[in-house]
């Protein structure tokens, strides 16, 4: 069976002056999967993710996301994706409802649909009492969950999550991953970067980056078998050990 490819990357290179952030990356992401992008800090994960989501232009190589070329049609890509950044980026001085309304409006959703989704979403997150609170008053975990909900509000084809669980407690992380599963279950492809190795176990497939290159790419089980390791963490340490 041929799986539907929603992201195709071939020979992607991104240079900042002399520094090569992404060195000849090639990979594919299939529809509906949870694709984990692992790597140490500075390995080039965020750079690649920004290129895939149309925020940054590739230096060379071919990048197709949701059927559109990242070099020529970044705005078309943006219509089809959701994005949540490691640095929390909902408007802190707006309430949860106002944020939802804003992004719903930006994605061209109708007023009634926005209202419907808002209710649905607040109910699902047990968020009702927080709806009219400013984002700045919410605890980090709630903010992150809300940000994910807003990122998929318009039912995109793919959602990009850049270290979404950074600084969040283990219980909230767990809940957050449940939300990710649910998102994937709805048919939205999830592309997630992380440096928490336990989270990598939850992914359908993972790629491990080191020094701008992809050094391994497969299912967690297969990688563990190949490297004769008990956990993804062990795999990671075996192959991506930073140079001394």
């Amino acid at each position: 069976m041929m799986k539907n490819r929603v992201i195709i990357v071939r020979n992607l290179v991104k240079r900042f002056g002399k520094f090569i952030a992404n060195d000849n990356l090639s990979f594919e992401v299939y529809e509906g999967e949870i694709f984990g992008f692992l790597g140490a800090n500075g390995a080039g994960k965020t750079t690649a993710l920004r290129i895939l989501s149309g925020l940054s232009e590739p230096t060379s190589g071919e990048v197709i996301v949701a059927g559109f070329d990242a070099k020529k049609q970044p705005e078309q890509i943006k219509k089809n994706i959701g994005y949540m950044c490691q640095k929390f980026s909902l408007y802190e001085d707006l309430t949860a409802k106002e944020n939802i309304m804003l992004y719903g409006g930006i994605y061209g959703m109708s007023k009634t649909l926005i209202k419907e989704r808002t209710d649905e979403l607040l109910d699902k997150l047990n968020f009702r009492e927080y709806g009219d609170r400013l984002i700045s008053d919410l605890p980090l975990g709630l903010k992150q969950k809300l940000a994910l909900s807003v990122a998929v509000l318009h039912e995109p084809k793919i959602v990009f999550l850049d270290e979404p669980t950074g600084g969040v407690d283990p219980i909230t992380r767990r809940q957050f991953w449940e939300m990710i599963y649910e998102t994937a279950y709805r048919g939205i492809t999830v592309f997630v970067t992380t440096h928490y190795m336990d989270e990598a176990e939850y992914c359908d497939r993972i790629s491990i980056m080191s020094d701008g290159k992809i050094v391994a790419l497969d299912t967690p089980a297969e990688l563990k078998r190949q490297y004769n390791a008990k956990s993804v963490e062990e795999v990671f340490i075996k192959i991506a050990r930073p140079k001394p």
Partner: protein
Amino acid sequence: MRTILYLIRKEFLQIFRDKFISKAIIGVPIVQMLLLVPAITFEIKDIRLCVIDMDISADSRALINQLEGSTFFKIKYSTFSEEKANNLMHRNKCDVVLQIPSEFGKNVGTGNPGKVLATINAINATTAQLSWAYLNGVLRDYNKNILLENAGDMAVSSIPQIDITNRYWYNELLNYKYYMLPGILGILVTAIGFLLAGLNLVKEKEVGTIEQINVTPVRKYHFIIAKMVPFLIIGLVDLSLGLIIGKITFNIPFEGSLGLLFLASAIFLVAVLGLALFISTFSSTQQQYMFVAFFFMIIFILMSGIFTPLESMPMWAQRFDIVNPMAYLMRINRMVMLKGSTIHDISRDIYALVIIAVVFTFFAVSRYRKTA
């Protein structure tokens, strides 16, 4: 279009949620009008005079009396020592030293020209020239009196002289407040447009929320327009506030059309907002933005003709003012408010403002990058 409305709504929510900004929007124009309009004046009263009367004659006494009688001069010091007088000038105790030599009375009495020497503190060239002009006026009157006395009744009619009667149009009483107020209104509108809008965009960069906007399919011009509209509205509200204060407090005359004034200010605001947002696309911190914005604002204001007449600036400066939106607004405000100019009289200025507004806005939209 709907997207713009959602974005504008968001901007307004944020502006009014910021307690400081929402208060400042009302407070700043009030303070500016009440403070600047009466404070900035070129009128000079009570020029401090130091007299060195070496003559002590009836004639010199008469001249001094005449000076004392004028509203412009106040005789602060009287001395016989030139050194002491210079010292007073040096210590900024007097503005003008008038020296009457000892032969003054004799010369005047015998029909020879009487001579006096006036030394004027010209650190401020404008006040120096004005002092000189006032002094000259007093001396002219004095001269006339001498002529009349010496010639006797018979000859008066035979002295040929030209008598000028003047009228000051558009500001009959030469009230500086009337001259400054339209200008201050311009500054008020500029401050709102230039500082608030630019800082707003740079703040989104600093906080990182702009990233979230950039990854959505929002169109660039939607985003820029949504950043402009709230401050355009606030600017016009502040203009109304300024006008109301002007009317109540200073009873400023308003000869022209209110609608025309608002139209010109609206176009001007778009120009300034366009430039502000253009600059903010270059700046990554609010500090950077403020530094550059301040630089532009000072240049625009000082070269706008608010304090110094455009006509007295050097040619290159006048040419620069072709791209200075403030220069147009200054002219329009004064012409509409004091002269009652109609749209036909100021159409050239309006066209120029429209072009500047379109160009700056175009720059802002095209410089704003959603994909780096």
